[in-house]
């Protein structure tokens, strides 16, 4: 039995990737959950907002690189991020003005907003492709590895390697900073409290003199920021392909619903629950089993589900939560 090697393998193939992925999902789910809590509809365009935010950030990254600007060991995209967020916020606010505000004035039912957001999703989808094309793009530069697999093997003397990429560390650090800033904003500032008040009880907020349009604008700006950050971190960690972002919609919604729609803490927990389930279920455990029980020679890979089916994990989690605890783990609004 070789516990150390098994642990390193689990760390390398499950814990590290799932933590980075979980942080990305959590940021995405936070955006979805904020919009649900305050604007009261499920925004299907969130995945494509992430895509176009990332595309814009990539364009700014290329621009900075063409000026010969880089960010030392960190990816240049991090420098371009504020520009990307600003541009995405403008785009999202324009969408609100052009589409959603009309329905808000009509006091339309939530399902109308959802369908409108599906339309927005298709438009953003096309815009992203027009802007940057459909191909896969890598835009990570700077230091690739914090811990290199070969060096780790030499240093530790273990046969199993451990790799920790710079983008993974960056993802977690940025996610922690963003979540901290968001909670500080929601709990400590007057703007944040006005948003929470609006989320708690819309009628009362209006009758207390809170300007709904201001709250709505604020929500969109924050959602655009969260979407762009989540999208850029995901793109840095994996790669950028518009279609991947569309597909991320499912795990993101699963994360938001598992935690309880409208509840920010829930969205974060949900992100990690979905990410860890997805990675753990699709990881072939044969190698780990080999270290722990060398005598056992399993016929298969000990992989519960092929990676092609990873989205099924989100589906199963969604269905189980909706069946047994429709308000989510952290008591959000009922779906």
């Amino acid at each position, binding site marked *: 039995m070789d516990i150390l090697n098994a642990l390193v393998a689990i760390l390398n193939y499950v814990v590290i990737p799932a933590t980075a992925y979980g942080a990305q999902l959590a940021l995405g789910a936070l955006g979805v959950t904020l919009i649900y809590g305050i604007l009261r509809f499920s925004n299907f365009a969130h995945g494509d907002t992430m895509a176009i935010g990332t595309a814009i950030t990539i364009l700014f990254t290329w621009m900075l690189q063409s000026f010969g600007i880089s960010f030392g060991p960190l990816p240049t995209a991090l420098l371009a991020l504020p520009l990307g967020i600003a541009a995405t916020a403008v785009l999202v606010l324009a969408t609100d003005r052009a589409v959603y505000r009309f329905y808000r004035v009509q006091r339309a039912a939530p399902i109308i907003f959802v369908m409108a957001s599906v339309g927005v999703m298709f438009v953003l989808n096309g815009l992203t492709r027009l802007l940057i094309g459909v191909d896969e793009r890598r835009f990570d530069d700077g230091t690739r590895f914090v811990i290199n697999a070969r060096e780790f093997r030499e240093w530790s003397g273990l046969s199993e390697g451990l790799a920790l990429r710079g983008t993974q560390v960056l993802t977690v650090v940025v996610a922690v900073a963003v979540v901290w800033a968001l909670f500080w904003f929601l709990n400590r500032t007057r703007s944040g409290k006005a948003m929470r008040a609006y989320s708690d009880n819309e009628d009362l907020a209006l*009758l207390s003199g809170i300007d709904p349009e201001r709250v709505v604008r604020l929500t969109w700006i924050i959602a655009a920021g969260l979407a762009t950050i989540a999208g850029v971190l995901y793109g840095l960690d994996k790669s950028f392909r518009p279609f991947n972002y569309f597909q991320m919609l499912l795990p993101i919604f699963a994360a938001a619903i598992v935690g309880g729609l409208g509840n920010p803490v829930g969205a974060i927990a949900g992100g990690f629950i979905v990410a860890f389930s997805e990675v753990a279920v699709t990881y072939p455990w044969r190698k780990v089993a080999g270290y722990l029980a060398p005598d056992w020679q399993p016929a298969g890979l000990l992989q519960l589900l092929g990676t092609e089916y990873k989205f099924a994990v989100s589906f199963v989690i969604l269905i189980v939560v909706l069946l047994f605890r429709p308000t989510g783990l952290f008591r959000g609004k009922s779906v």
Partner: protein
Amino acid sequence: MIRVEDLHRHFGGFRAVDGASLTIEKGSITGLIGPNGAGKTTLFNVIAGVLPPTSGHVYMDGQDITGLPPHQLFHRGLLRTFQLAHEFASMTVRENLMMVPGGQSGEVLWNTWFRRGQIAREEAELRKRADEVLDFLTIRHLATEKAGNLSGGQKKLLELGRTMMVDAKIVFLDEVGAGVNRTLLGTIGDAIVRLNKERGYTFCVIEHDMDFIGRLCDPVIVMAEGKVLAEGSADEIMKNEDVIEAYLGTGLKNKVKAELAGGDA
């Protein structure tokens, strides 16, 4: 102060408010009574901008305020409370009160970072005011309690407290006494009178408790089936035959009349 002219609000075929016209005089505590389903709360909702009217107009100090959104009416000094107490459940009682004067400079994203001094001053001022209101309502000990955990009666007090956070001109109270015990009802009544006398608030009160109405309100307006049925002092109203009929139906009315007649003889 408030003039409502031929106001209609229909829900599909149902005419909740069906041509109501009434006037609320400045400085009065006007009672609004009527059987359940008479359209009182719908009338409040239309006046307060929560529901758009089907037709008709609402004037405040001569200006047409029909269909203005609630937050704009708030800044004109028109406030209302809810029949079922509303609160920001995830915030403390003090935060609930401090939330009330919406439109503070801290609600602008830009100011959050660049005008922190001004925001801090405003917040300190609000905090002081909130604590005064809590003292007035004798619920200072609940200041840091989550508003969602309060009892029904305490939530009613919080509703009233909310109207005291600003200098309102007119406050619409929707069954402020419902589900409140007699002692607390007395406290609420005293608070209303005090606000009326000391701060010049005009009140319009929906209430089913006739003792409460009789003690506070003059005049009293009676609504039935979406229309204004009668208006007058509380005593006049209680003797008005149409009013008794609206509340009790024809059969019971005759019985009550007979009893009243018997009592007099």
